[in-house]
C-alpha cells in the first residue's frame, strides 16, 4: 500500500498539467464597436480640447517627425502636394504654399487633422492632440522656408550667401 502512494501522488500532480499558451482572454483584434463608431458616452483617450503650445525647437522636431510619418505620403516632404500616393492616382491636395493656406491660422491645420477635409480622412485616431499641434507648427515653418525673405537671415550669416 505504502509503495503505491508515490505513484498515486505523481498521477495527481499530472492532472494540473495544462498548456498555458492560450488563456481565456480576448483573442481577436476586435474592438467593442465597429471601426466607424465610438462607444456611446465616451471621450477619446486624451482627446480633450487643447490650446496651441508655445513654439520651441523641440516641438518643431517632433512635428517634422510626425509630419514625415502621416502627411508626406500625400503632401510630400515639401508640402507641395506631390507625394508618392498622389503619383499613384490619389487626387492631389493643394500646396501648402498657396496664399490661402499661408494666411490660414494654425488652428485651421489642427482642425483639418482632427476632422478631415474633403477627400482627406481625419487623423484624430492616429495623431494625438499634442502631435497635431506639433505638425501644425512644423507646417508653418515649412511655409516660411519655401517663402523665405532676406529678413529671415541673420545679419552675420547674410554675407555667406552673397
Amino acid at each position, binding site marked *: 500500500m505504502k509503495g503505491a502512494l508515490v505513484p498515486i501522488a505523481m498521477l495527481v500532480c499530472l492532472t494540473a498539467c495544462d498548456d*498555458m*499558451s*492560450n*488563456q481565456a*482572454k480576448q483573442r*481577436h*483584434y*476586435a*474592438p467593442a*464597436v*465597429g*471601426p*466607424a*463608431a465610438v462607444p456611446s458616452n465616451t471621450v477619446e483617450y486624451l482627446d480633450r480640447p487643447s490650446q496651441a503650445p508655445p513654439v520651441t525647437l523641440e516641438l518643431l522636431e517632433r512635428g517634422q517627425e510626425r509630419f*514625415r*510619418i*502621416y502627411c*508626406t*505620403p500625400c503632401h510630400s516632404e515639401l508640402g507641395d502636394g506631390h507625394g*508618392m*500616393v498622389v503619383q*499613384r*492616382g*490619389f*487626387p492631389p491636395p493643394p500646396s501648402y504654399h498657396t496664399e490661402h493656406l499661408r494666411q490660414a491660422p494654425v488652428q485651421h491645420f489642427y482642425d483639418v487633422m482632427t476632422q478631415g477635409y474633403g*477627400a*482627406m*480622412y481625419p487623423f484624430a*485616431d*492616429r495623431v494625438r492632440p499634442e502631435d497635431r499641434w506639433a505638425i501644425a507648427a512644423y507646417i508653418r515653418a515649412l511655409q516660411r522656408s519655401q517663402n523665405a525673405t532676406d529678413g529671415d537671415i541673420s545679419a552675420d550669416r547674410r554675407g555667406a550667401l552673397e
Partner: protein
Amino acid sequence: MPAIFRPSANLAAAVTLLALAGLGVGGVALWWLWPRTDYARHVRWPVGQPVPFSHEHHVAGLGLDCRFCHNSVEVSATAGLPPTTTCMTCHSQIWTNAAVLAPVRLSLASDTPIAWNRINDLPDYVYFNHGIHIAKGVGCASCHGEVDRMALTYKASSLTMQFCLDCHRDPGPRLRPKDQIFNTQWQRTADTASPAALMGEYHLRNGRRLTDCSICHR
C-alpha cells in the same frame, strides 16, 4: 538437443537491442526537438488573410512608415493593427473597384472590423512589450525581419525563449541609432556608433539582469 540459435544470432540480438535503444533516444529527441524546429513553429510561412495585404507594396513601394498603420508601437505593449479607416484613407480614392479590397469596403459599410489572422503569437504566459524595445533602440527588423520585402507577411524569427535571451544577455551589438529603428534594411556599418556607445545613449546599464525570469514571466 541442437542449439536453437545459430552464432550469428548474437549479432542480430545486439543490433536489435541497439536499434531499440536508438529508436527510444531518437524518439525522445524528436519529441523534444520537433516543436523547436522552424517548421513546426511556422517560421517563414505566409498566413492566409482576408485581404492579401502586401508590406512590399505599401512600405518599399510607397515609402509608408510603419507607424502610419501600427501607430501605437512606440507607446504601448502592442503594436496594433490598422483599423479599416486607415486603409480607407487611401483606398476611398484609389483602387476603389479592386475585388481584392472588397472585404475592406464591406467592413466600412457594415461597420464590422476586419479580423486579421495572427502571425507572431507568443504563449500567453510570456509578457512582451513593444514600447520599451522601440524606446531603447531595438529595430522592428531584429524580430520581424525584412518586412518591407514581404509580399505576404510571415513570421521571420522563431520567437523562442532562446531567441529573446540571445539578445537580452548582450543587447549592445543589436541596438541601432534612433533614426534607423523603422528602417528594416539598415545594416551596421563602420561608422555606426559602437555597441558600448549605443548602450550609453539609451541609458542601458550592463548590470541590469534582463535575463531574470520575472522580466518575461510576470
